[in-house]
C-alpha cells in the first residue's frame, strides 16, 4: 500500500506496541495546520477514501489560517480530552505541537505526522508521511536545466512567508541550479503563499526586472497569481514553475498558463498516511518515515494526471 | 487677613486665540469676603479670564498674583492646590459615574493605604448636597439627571473643595428661580465665612441681587472696574453693550383666534401626565415651572421624541400621531432644544450648513442641492439677524454663544415650520442677543407662526408670552394670560412644588 518506511532519527520513534486503541471502530482525528490550503483538503480526501474502505471513523479539525498556531494547539488540546484512537496531524510549528503530542502518545494514541520529511520530530511519534520538499524542488531545477540547457536565464523567486517550508523549497531549487552559470537569480521576494500575494509580487518583480525569463514560486497558488501578472504584461513567453500539484495548478499547466510544477500527489499521500495509521493501530506498522513520490509535470504530464480525477481533490473543473 | 488686600489679582492679563484677542491687558482684584461679578457680552472674554485662573490656559502675557505674590498656575491640579474651585461653563461632570464620585472627582476620600473609601465618598457627598439643600441621590448615575440637576452637581463639586476662592461661570444658566435663590443663599454664607467668589452670569436680575462689585468687559477690555456701591442694571447694560438699550422686552402681540395646535390629555412614560392646551396662530404660549417640572418632557411629547401613552395631538384640526421627530418636522413643528451645543449645532459646518440642515428638501431638486440658493438665503438671514460676519468663514464652534443661538433659530426661520418650541432659547446669551431673539420671536409671530416658549427666566417669560401655562409634575395646573400673572405667582407655583418634594423625600 505504501513505500517501505525509512527509520526515523535516533530516539524519535515512539514504540508501536504501546499503542492502545480504545474503540471498537477506530476513531481518528485528522488535524492539518489550516483549512485555507486546498492541499490539506486533498490529503484529507485520501484519508477519507481509505477510512471508507476500511470502515473507520475520521473527522477533520483545523483552524482556518495556517498562521493560527495557537488555534491549532487549542484544537489538539480539545481532541486530547476525547476518546480518539489516533491523530494524523500536520503543523507549521512542530515544537509547539510537541508537548501535546507527547501527551497523546502517552495516552496510547497513534500519532502520525503528515506532509513532512522531518526525521527527528522533537518528541517521539509513531510515523511520518510525506515527500521530501528539498528533493522535490531540486528535481524541478534539474528538469529546468535539462529543458533549457545552456541558455542564459534570469530567474525571479517568489518565496512563501519565512519558515521551514519556504526555506526547504527555495533551498532545494537553489541547490538544484547551483553550478549552472546560465541561471542567474536576480530577485527573490515574499508572495505570502497566496494568489493575491503571488500576483502582486509577480507584477512588481516584472516591473523591476522586465528581462526575467523564469519565475519559480514556492507553491502553486503564488505561481498562479504570478501567471496573471505575466499575462497582463504580455509576457506569455516566461517560464513559470510551481510546487504542489494542486488540481488548480495542474489545470493552469494544462491550459498553458503555468509551465510546470512538482506534483506531490497529496491524495496519494493521504492514502498512504491512513494505511500506515491503521496498521499502527493494529500493531503491524514498523514505524519510520514513508517518503511519498514526487514527479515533475509539464503540460502533457499535467493532462495525464488530470485524466485520473479519482486521485485528485478538488475535482478538475472539466474532463481531460 | 486684611479686608482690602486682594486675595487674587490679575495684572495686565492678555490672551489671544487665532484671529481674536480674547483678553486685552485685563486687571481685576478679587477680595476675600466678596462676590465679584464678571460681566459682558458673549465672546467678550469672561470664560477665557476664568480659564487662566483655573489653570486651563496660560496667559499670553501678564501676571496672576496670590496674596500679592506672582504665581504660575500651570494646570488645573495646581489651581486646586492653591484653593481655587471652578464651576465651568461647559459641564465638567462625567456622565457615566455616580453623583458621589463626580463630586469628589480627582480627590476621592481614601484610606491610609490609598484605597478608595466608598462609605465616605457617599456620606461626604450627601453632606455637601444637604448643605446646598439639594435632593439628589449620591448613587445616581449623573448622566441620567436633568440638565439642572447636573448643574447642581457641578456646583457641589466646587463647594466640596472648601476652597478659598470659588469661580462660577454661568452657574445658573440651567437653573430655575428656586435653585437660584438657594444657590445665592449658599454663596452669601460662604462669602461671610471668608471665601472669595468670582461670578459670571447673563441674568442681570440675579447679578443685582447677589454681586458686591463688578468688572465689565467689552471686546476683551475692562470698560468698568469694581468699587461701585450700588449696582445699577441699566448702567451695566450700557457699559456692556456700549450704547443705551431702550426696551429689554420688545413684545409684539400677534395672536389670532385660530387654534393651530391642540394637546388633549397627552401623557408619556417620561412623566407627562394629562396635559391639555391650545395654541393659537401667532401666539406665544409660555410654559413656566420649576426645574424638572416636565416642560422639556412636554416638548418631547409634542415633537414625537417620546411616545404618547394617552391622549392625542391635534394639528390644524386634524389629529396627528408622530412616530418620531421626522414626522413632527414634516408636519411643520420645530424644536430649539435646551442644550444647543449637544442637540442643536453641527460644529463641522459653517453657518450655512447649520441654517439649511432642516430644509435640505427645499434646496434640493432630484437630490441635488442648489448651492447658489443656499448661499444667497443664508447670507440674507445672516444680515437680517445681525449674525457675526465670521459665521460664513469658519465652522460655528468659533462663534460666541449668542451667535450660535441665533443660527439655531435661523434654521427654523429658513424652514417652513409653523410651530416652534423654544426650550430656554436665551440661556447663556447676552442681553443684546436676547433682544435679538425676542425680535425674532416677534418676526415669527407676525408671520403667523406660533411659539411655545419654555423659560426659567420669569421676567422674560412674563414679558414675552401671550399666555402662560404653569407646569407642575408633568401636568398643567393653570393657564392664564401673561398680563394676569406676575413674578410672585410663578415663584409661588415653583416654591410649593419644590419644597413639598424635598421635604417628602428628605423624610424618606
Amino acid at each position, binding site marked *: 500500500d505504501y513505500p517501505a518506511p525509512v527509520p526515523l532519527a535516533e530516539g524519535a520513534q515512539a514504540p508501536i506496541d504501546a499503542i492502545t486503541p480504545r474503540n471498537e471502530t477506530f476513531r481518528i482525528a485528522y488535524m492539518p495546520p489550516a483549512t485555507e490550503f486546498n492541499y490539506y483538503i486533498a490529503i484529507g480526501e485520501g484519508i477519507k477514501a481509505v477510512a471508507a474502505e476500511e470502515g473507520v471513523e475520521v473527522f477533520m479539525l483545523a483552524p482556518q489560517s495556517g498562521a493560527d498556531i495557537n488555534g491549532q494547539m487549542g484544537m489538539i488540546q480539545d481532541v486530547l480530552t476525547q476518546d480518539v484512537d489516533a491523530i494524523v496531524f500536520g503543523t507549521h510549528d512542530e515544537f509547539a505541537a510537541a508537548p501535546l503530542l507527547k501527551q497523546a502518545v502517552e495516552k496510547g494514541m497513534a500519532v502520525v505526522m503528515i506532509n513532512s520529511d522531518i526525521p527527528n520530530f522533537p518528541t517521539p511519534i509513531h510515523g511520518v508521511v510525506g515527500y521530501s520538499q528539498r528533493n522535490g524542488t531540486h528535481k524541478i531545477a534539474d528538469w529546468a536545466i535539462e529543458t533549457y540547457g545552456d541558455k542564459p536565464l534570469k530567474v525571479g523567486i517568489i518565496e512563501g512567508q519565512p519558515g521551514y517550508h519556504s526555506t526547504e523549497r527555495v533551498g532545494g531549487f537553489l541547490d538544484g541550479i547551483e553550478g549552472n552559470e546560465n541561471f542567474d537569480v536576480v530577485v527573490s521576494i515574499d508572495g505570502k503563499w497566496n*494568489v493575491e500575494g503571488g500576483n502582486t509580487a509577480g507584477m512588481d518583480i516584472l*516591473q*523591476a526586472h522586465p528581462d526575467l525569463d523564469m519565475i519559480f514560486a514556492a507553491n502553486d497558488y503564488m505561481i498562479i497569481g504570478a501567471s496573471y501578472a505575466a499575462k497582463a504584461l504580455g509576457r506569455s513567453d516566461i517560464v513559470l514553475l510551481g510546487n504542489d500539484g494542486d488540481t488548480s495548478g495542474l489545470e493552469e499547466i494544462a491550459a498553458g498558463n503555468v509551465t510546470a510544477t512538482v506534483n506531490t500527489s497529496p491524495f496519494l499521500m493521504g492514502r498512504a498516511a491512513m494505511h500506515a495509521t491503521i496498521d499502527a493501530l493494529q500493531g503491524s506498522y514498523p514505524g519510520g518515515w514513508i517518503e511519498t513520490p514526487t514527479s515533475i509535470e509539464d503540460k502533457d504530464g499535467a493532462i495525464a494526471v488530470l485524466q485520473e480525477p479519482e486521485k485528485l481533490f478538488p475535482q478538475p473543473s472539466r474532463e481531460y | 487677613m486684611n479686608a482690602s488686600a486682594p486675595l487674587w489679582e490679575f495684572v495686565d492679563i492678555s490672551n489671544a486665540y487665532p484671529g481674536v484677542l480674547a483678553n486685552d491687558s485685563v486687571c481685576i482684584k478679587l477680595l476675600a469676603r466678596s462676590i465679584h461679578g464678571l460681566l459682558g457680552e458673549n465672546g467678550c472674554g469672561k470664560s477665557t479670564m476664568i480659564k487662566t485662573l483655573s489653570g486651563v490656559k496660560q496667559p499670553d502675557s501678564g501676571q496672576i498674583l496670590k496674596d500679592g505674590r506672582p504665581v504660575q498656575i500651570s494646570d488645573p491640579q495646581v489651581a486646586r492646590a492653591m484653593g481655587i474651585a471652578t464651576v465651568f461653563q461647559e459641564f465638567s461632570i462625567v456622565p457615566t459615574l455616580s453623583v458621589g464620585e463626580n463630586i469628589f472627582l480627582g480627590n476621592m476620600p481614601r484610606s491610609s493605604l490609598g484605597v478608595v473609601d466608598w462609605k465616605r465618598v457617599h456620606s461626604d457627598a450627601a453632606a455637601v448636597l444637604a448643605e446646598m439643600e439639594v435632593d439628589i441621590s449620591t448613587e445616581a448615575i449623573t448622566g441620567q439627571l436633568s440638565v439642572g440637576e447636573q448643574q447642581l452637581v457641578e456646583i457641589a463639586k466646587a463647594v466640596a473643595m472648601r476652597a478659598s476662592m470659588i469661580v462660577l461661570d454661568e452657574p445658573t444658566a440651567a437653573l430655575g428661580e428656586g435653585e437660584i435663590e438657594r444657590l445665592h443663599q449658599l454663596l452669601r454664607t460662604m462669602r461671610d465665612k471668608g471665601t472669595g467668589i468670582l461670578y459670571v452670569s447673563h441674568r442681570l436680575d440675579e447679578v443685582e441681587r447677589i454681586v458686591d462689585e463688578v468688572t465689565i468687559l467689552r471686546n476683551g477690555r475692562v470698560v468698568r472696574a469694581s468699587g461701585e456701591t450700588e449696582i445699577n442694571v441699566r448702567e451695566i447694560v450700557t457699559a456692556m453693550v456700549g450704547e443705551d438699550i431702550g426696551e429689554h422686552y420688545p413684545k409684539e402681540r400677534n395672536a389670532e383666534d385660530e387654534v393651530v395646535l391642540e394637546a388633549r390629555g397627552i401623557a408619556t412614560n417620561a412623566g407627562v401626565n394629562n396635559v391639555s392646551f391650545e395654541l393659537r396662530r401667532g401666539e406665544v404660549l409660555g410654559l413656566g415651572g420649576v426645574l424638572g417640572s416636565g416642560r422639556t418632557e412636554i416638548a418631547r411629547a409634542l415633537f414625537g421624541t417620546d411616545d404618547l401613552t394617552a391622549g392625542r395631538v391635534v394639528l390644524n384640526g386634524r389629529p396627528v400621531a408622530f412616530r418620531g421627530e421626522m414626522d413632527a418636522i414634516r408636519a411643520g413643528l420645530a424644536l430649539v432644544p435646551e442644550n444647543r451645543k449637544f*442637540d442643536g449645532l453641527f460644529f463641522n459646518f459653517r453657518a450655512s450648513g447649520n441654517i439649511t*440642515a432642516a430644509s435640505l428638501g427645499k434646496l434640493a431638486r432630484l437630490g441635488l442641492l442648489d448651492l447658489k440658493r443656499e448661499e444667497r438665503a443664508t447670507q440674507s438671514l445672516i444680515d437680517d439677524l445681525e449674525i457675526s460676519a465670521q459665521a460664513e468663514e*469658519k465652522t460655528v464652534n468659533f462663534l460666541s454663544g449668542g451667535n450660535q443661538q441665533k443660527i439655531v433659530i435661523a434654521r427654523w426661520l429658513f424652514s417652513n415650520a409653523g410651530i416652534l418650541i423654544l426650550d430656554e432659547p436665551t440661556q447663556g446669551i447676552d442681553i443684546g442677543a436676547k433682544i435679538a431673539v425676542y425680535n425674532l420671536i416677534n418676526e415669527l409671530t407676525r408671520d403667523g407662526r406660533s411659539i411655545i416658549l419654555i423659560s426659567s427666566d420669569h421676567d422674560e417669560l412674563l414679558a414675552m408670552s401671550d399666555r402662560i401655562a404653569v407646569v407642575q409634575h408633568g401636568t398643567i395646573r393653570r393657564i392664564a394670560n401673561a398680563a394676569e400673572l406676575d413674578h410672585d405667582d410663578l415663584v409661588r407655583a415653583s416654591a410649593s412644588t419644590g419644597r413639598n418634594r424635598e421635604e417628602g423625600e428628605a423624610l424618606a
Partner: protein
Amino acid sequence: MKRIFDAQLIGPFAALVIVSLVVALTTERFLNPGNLSNLSLQVSIVALIAIGSTIVIFAAGIDLSSGSMVALLTMIFALMLKFVGVPLVLAVPLILVAGALLGLLIGVITAYGRIPSFITTLAALIAFRGLALTFNNGSPIFSLDPALEPLFYGKFVGIPLPFFYLVFFYGLAAFTMNFSKLGREIYAVGGNPAAAVLTGINVRKVQAITFVIAGFMTAVGAVLMSARLNSGSPNYGQTLELQAIAAAVVGGASLAGGRGNILATLMGAMTIVIVQNGLNLNAAPSSVQNIVLGLIILLAVGIDMWRTEISALVARVSGRKPDAEAAAGKKAG
C-alpha cells in the same frame, strides 16, 4: 468645483507628491510607463473599496467588514460563474446587488439595532469569512471565465481600465458628497447625530445607506479581485479593510466623523501603494514594508493633528499669521 478641491486636499496631496518624488529618485524603474499603469492596477481595488470605508467614516461609523466581504463575494461570484453557469453580464450586476444587500444588513443592524458599527462590522468580519468557507469545502475556485480577466487587465486607448473605474467612482462620490442632499446629510449625521435627529434628518436611514454604499463598493472591489485573479477564494481580502481604512486615514478623514474630502482618500491610497511599489521594486522584505506602512499611517495622522502647531511654526519662521482653517481642523476633528 471649488467645493470639491478644497483646502483639505492640500495635506494629502503634498504627502503624495513628496512620497512620489522620494520613490522616483531612489528607484530606477518607478517612472517607467509600464510601472505607472501597473500602479493604477495595484491601487484600484483598495481605492475603490476605500470610497465606501471613507463614506462610512464621514458618518462617524467604521467598516471592518470589507475584507471578509470580498472573500464571500468572490466565492459567490465564482460559484455563479463556474457551477451555476450564470453568464458574466448577469453575474456582475448580481454581485453588486449582493454586496449592497450585505451592506444593507450591516447597516440595518447598526442603525436600527443601535449597535456600534465597530461591533457589527467586527462580527461581520468574522462571520463573512466563515460563510465564505462554507462554499466549495472552503477551497478556492479557479479559472472562472476567459471574459473576466479583461475587466481588470483590459485597456482603453492604452490606459488600463481600472483607471477609468477610479475616475468614474471617485467622480461620482465627490459629486454626491458635495452637491447632493444625501452627501450633506451624511456629513450632518457624522457631525452631530443628536442635532441631525432634531432637524428631521432620518439619521438611521442615512447611516444604513452609508453601509449600503460601502457594501456596493466592496462588491466592485470583489469583482475586480476575481477578475484580477480569475478566481474566487475564501482567503482573499485579508486585512483589506485595514488597508482601506488606512487609505482614508492617510487621506485625512477624521474618525470622529463629519469632515473630510473623499478625493483625499484616493490620494491616501495612492501614497500607500506607491510606497509599497517602491519597496517592492527595491525588493525590500515584507518586514520593512510593514514597518514603513505603520509609520506612514502615524505620520499622516500626526501631521494632520499637529497642523496648528506646524502652521504656527511655519508662521513664526516665515513671519505670517497662522491660518484659522488649521485651527478649525484641530477643534472639530
